[in-house]
C-alpha cells in the first residue's frame, strides 16, 4: 500500500466534508480513516484537531456537571444553590399582611355623640344629618384620603328586596365623602353570588360609578392573607386586599337584615364580605366569626342603612312581603352600639335577647352593646 493515494483520499475527504452534503461524501469504512493511516504533517494535524475537540467537549461536559453539582449540592445559603434538604424551601411562601394597629378609626372626640340617628324619607338629607350628628364628615375624612366603602352586595337582588345596601344611600355617602376632599372612593364587596351580576342587579354598580367611585370586584388575584392578632378563627385568613392597598379610611354601609343563623345581619356582620377562602365553614361558629370580624376591622365609621328593613327570610329575602320601610339611617363609630340600636329599633326585637356575637365582641372591648348608655343625637329630616 503506497502512502500517496491514501494521503490524497484523506485530503479529499476532509476538504469535501466541509462543503458538501454527507450523501456525497465517501461512505462507510473509507470515510472514517483511523489516525494510524496518516503520516507526517497530516497525522500531527489530525491529532491536534482531535485533542482540541476532545478538550472542548470535555470542558463543556465538566462545566455542565460542575454547574449541576453546585446548584444541587452546595449549601442552601450559597449563591445559585437551590438545595432544599428538608423540603421547607420549596413550600409556597405567603405574604402576611396587617391592617393598621388601631384600625381606620379617627381620634375619639369627647363631645361628638357615638350614635347619630336621622329619620325621614329624603335619603340624601338623612345621610348628611346622620353623619353631622356624630361630628360631621370633616371629623372623619381629610383632603387626600383614599376611602374604602364596603356595602353589602351579597346577593343578586334588586334593591327593593332589602337584601343588599340601598344604592341611593351609597350614592349619597360617596358624594358626602368626595365633597370632604377625599382623593378616591373605592367600593368593594365579595358577594356570595356572581360578583358582576350582584353589583349590576343591586344597582350598586351604577350608583357607585355615577357618584364617581371606583369599583373593586373580587378576582382570584385580589386576596392576600391577613393577620388578625388574637382572632379565634381568622388569625391568618384570605382577605379581599386589593381595594385596601393604599387606603387609609374605611366606611361600612350595611342594610338591616334578619339572618337565619346569627339572627341579625347589620354593620358588624357586613365585614364578612371582605373574607375570601372557604368562608362557608364559619357557620359552624357564626357568633365567633362575627366577633372576629369586629376585631379584624375597626372602621372610620359605619352607616346602618335602615331605609328598608328585611325583617324575615333573611339574609336573602326575595319577596316584597319580607321588607318594610324603616325611614332611618344611623351613623356611628361603634358597630356594636349601632347594631344593638338596629336590633331594638329597626328589627323591632326589643326585649329579645341580643345574638351571642354582641356579648362576645363586647368582651373583647370592641364596643358597647347597650346603645342607651352611649351618647346619641337624633334628627328628623324631610
Amino acid at each position: 500500500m503506497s502512502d500517496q493515494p491514501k494521503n490524497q483520499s484523506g485530503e479529499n475527504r476532509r476538504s469535501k466534508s466541509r462543503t458538501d452534503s454527507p450523501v456525497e461524501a465517501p461512505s462507510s469504512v473509507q470515510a472514517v480513516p483511523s489516525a494510524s493511516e496518516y503520516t507526517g504533517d497530516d497525522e500531527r494535524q489530525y491529532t491536534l484537531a482531535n485533542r482540541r475537540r476532545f478538550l472542548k467537549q470535555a470542558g463543556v461536559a465538566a462545566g455542565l456537571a460542575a454547574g449541576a453539582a453546585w446548584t444541587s449540592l452546595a449549601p442552601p445559603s450559597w449563591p445559585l444553590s437551590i438545595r432544599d434538604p428538608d423540603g421547607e424551601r420549596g413550600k409556597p411562601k405567603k405574604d402576611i399582611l396587617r391592617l393598621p394597629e388601631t384600625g381606620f378609626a379617627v381620634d375619639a372626640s369627647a363631645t361628638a355623640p357615638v350614635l347619630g340617628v336621622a329619620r325621614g324619607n329624603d335619603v340624601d338629607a338623612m345621610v348628611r344629618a346622620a353623619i353631622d350628628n356624630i361630628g360631621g364628615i370633616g371629623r372623619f375624612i381629610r383632603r387626600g384620603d383614599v376611602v374604602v366603602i364596603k356595602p353589602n352586595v351579597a346577593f343578586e337582588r334588586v334593591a327593593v328586596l332589602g337584601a343588599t345596601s340601598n344604592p341611593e344611600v351609597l350614592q349619597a355617602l360617596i358624594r358626602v365623602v368626595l365633597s370632604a376632599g377625599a382623593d378616591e372612593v373605592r367600593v368593594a364587596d365579595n358577594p356570595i353570588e356572581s360578583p358582576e351580576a350582584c353589583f349590576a342587579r343591586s344597582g350598586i354598580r351604577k350608583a357607585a360609578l355615577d357618584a364617581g367611585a371606583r369599583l373593586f370586584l373580587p378576582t382570584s388575584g385580589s386576596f392576600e392573607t391577613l393577620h388578625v392578632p388574637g382572632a379565634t378563627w381568622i388569625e391568618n385568613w384570605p382577605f379581599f386586599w386589593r381595594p385596601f392597598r393604599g387606603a387609609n379610611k374605611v366606611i361600612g354601609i350595611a342594610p338591616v337584615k334578619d339572618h337565619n343563623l346569627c339572627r341579625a345581619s347589620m354593620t358588624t356582620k357586613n365585614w364578612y364580605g371582605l373574607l375570601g377562602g372557604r368562608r362557608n365553614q364559619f357557620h359552624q361558629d357564626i357568633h365567633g366569626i362575627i366577633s372576629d370580624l369586629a376585631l379584624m376591622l375597626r372602621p372610620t365609621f359605619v352607616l346602618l342603612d335602615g331605609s328598608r328593613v328585611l325583617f324575615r327570610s333573611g339574609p336573602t329575602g326575595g319577596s316584597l312581603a319580607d321588607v318594610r320601610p324603616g325611614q332611618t339611617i344611623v351613623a356611628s363609630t361603634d358597630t356594636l352600639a349601632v347594631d344593638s340600636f338596629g336590633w331594638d329599633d329597626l328589627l323591632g326585637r326589643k326585649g329579645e335577647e341580643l345574638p351571642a356575637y354582641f356579648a362576645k365582641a363586647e368582651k373583647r372591648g370592641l364596643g358597647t352593646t347597650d346603645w342607651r348608655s352611649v351618647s346619641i343625637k337624633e334628627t328628623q329630616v324631610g
Partner: protein
Amino acid sequence: MSEKKNKKVVRLKVLQPNRDGTPWYARSLRITKIRVISQAFFFALFMFLLWVTWFSRLGGYPASLFLELDPLVGFATALATHTIYRHLWFGLIILGVTLLFGRVFCNWMCPYGTLHQFVGWLFNIRGNKDNIDKNRYHSVYQLKYFILAIFLIMAAFGSLQIGLLDPICLLVRTVTVTVAPAMDLVAEDWGLTTISFAPGAPEQRIFSGAWFVGLMIIGLVGMNLVIPRFFCRFLCPLGAFLGFLSRFALWRIDRDVTKCTDCDLCLRRCEGASDPQAALRKSECFVCFNCIDDCPEDALSFRLAPLPIKDRIVGSIKKGTATLFGKKVISKVAETEIKGPDVARRRWVFAGIAGVMAYPFLRLSKAVNNRGFHEKAIRPPGSVAEEEFLERCIKCDQCINVCPTNVLQPSTLAEGGLEGLWTPVMDFSVGFCQLNCTLCTEVCPTGAIQKTSIARKLGRGEYEKDGPIRVGTAFFNRGRCLPWSMETPCVVCEEVCPVSPKAIGTYDEDIIRWDGTKVTLNKPYMRPELCIGCGICERECPVIDDAAVYVTAVGETRSEDRTLLLKSHKDT
C-alpha cells in the same frame, strides 16, 4: 423646477393602468389579498362575538351569529324538529352565496378554515414539488360526505350530532372550553382583566373534559403539517354540505385548454385539492383563487357558468391535432369539470345504512332515556324535554360560554352518553344557577334552551299559575350533614336558599355536645314544592367533596316523565 415637474408626472404614472389594461391597483391588490383580508375580518369578528358573550358585554350583540349563519345547523335542526328556530334562517345567506359561487364560505369566511390555512401556511416546510403532490385530490377525501350523510340521517331520526364536527360548533366549543379559560389565566396574571373572556368571574373558570377538547384541536390543527387542510378535506360535514350544493354554483374556476400546458403549478397552493389542473372538482373547490394567482400561462379564470368543453374539441389530443374553436389545444387533459362529489352510489347506500344503524345504537344507550338517565344530567332552565333537547342541541357550548357562575359544563360520556357528549349540564360542585339570570336562554341558537324571560323562569307575573322552572330537586344526605350527624352548627344551605319562602327549613334543637358544651343545632330539611333546583345550597355546602345537600335531575319541570311530586293535572 423641472425636476419637481418630472416627479409629478412619475407619480401620476403610478395610477395609470397596467400594460395589459388592468387597473393600477391590480398590481398589488390581488384577489387573493382581498381574500386574506376577508378571512382576517371574519376570524376577528368570530372571536369578538365570543368575547362579548359575557354578562357585562352582551348588550345587543348577535353573539351566536356564526352559528346561525351556518346552513348545516339550520338544515339539520329543521330535519330533526321540522321547524326553523329564531334566527336560523340566516343560513339561507350562506346557502345563496354557495349556489352562486361555490364553497366561498370555506375559504373566505369560515374561522376554522382560516385557522387551518394559517397554521398550514406558517409551518409549511415543503418545497413546490411536495406541495403539488400534497394538493392532489385523493379519493379518501370523500369521507366527509359519509360523515354528512350519517349525521343527516341521524338528525332525521331525532338525534342531532352535527355539532361533533361542524366547524363553527367545534370552534365555539373549543374557544369556550379551552382557549378562553387559558387566555383568562394569562390575563389574570398580567392584570389585563379588561381583555379577559370572563371579567368579574370570582374564580378561574374550569370545564370538565377540557383536556379532550384541547387535545382535539391540537390534533386537528396539527394535522395541517401532514396534510394541508386535513379537517376541511377529510372531515368537515359543513364543507361536505356546501360541496354538495356547489354543483349548482353558477361561477366556477375554468381552465383554458388552449393555454394550459399541464405544468400543475396551480396545485402549489390549492386549498381544496380540487384538481384545477385537470377536471375541476367543483364540490372540493374552496374558491381560494390561489390557482389563478399561480398559473404562469393565465389559463385559469373564475367564470360565469362555463360549459364543459370536452365535446367541442375537434381532432385528436393524442396526435396533437386538437383544436377548440379554431385555437390549438395545448393541454393533454380534455375535461374541465366534475360537478358533484366523487362518491359512488353504492357508497352512498352504505353511508345511509350506517346512519340508520347509528340512531338506535346511540338512542338505546341508557343515559339519554327516561329510564336510567344520569341523576346529574341537569339541564339549564328553559331547556326542552330531553328527547327534544337531543333534536336541537348542537353542542356548540355558547350557553356554557355565557354562564356567569361556571355551573354549565360540557357533559361527559357519564352524564349524556355519546349522544349527549358536550351538551350542557349543570355541575353544582363548580357553580350554581343564578336566580335572576337567563343568559343561556338568550344565546342558544337552536332553541334547545328556549328563550326564557326571568318572569317565566321564576313563575312571576303572568306565569304565576305555571310556577317557577325547576331544573331538579335538592336532597339532604343526613349522614354527611354537620348538624344532623356531627353535632356541629351550620345551615349555610338555608342561608343561601334564594327562593322566598325558603325551600330549606330547619328543626331547631338545643343539645349538649359530647364535650359538655351547649349548642343550638338547626337541622335542615327540604320543602320540595318550593325547591327550584338552583343548586346554590350544594355549591355553598361546606362538605365540599360530596356535598351533604345535593341536587339531582328528578322533578324537573321540562319533563312529564321525570317528575317527583304529585301534582294536579286539572289544567292539562
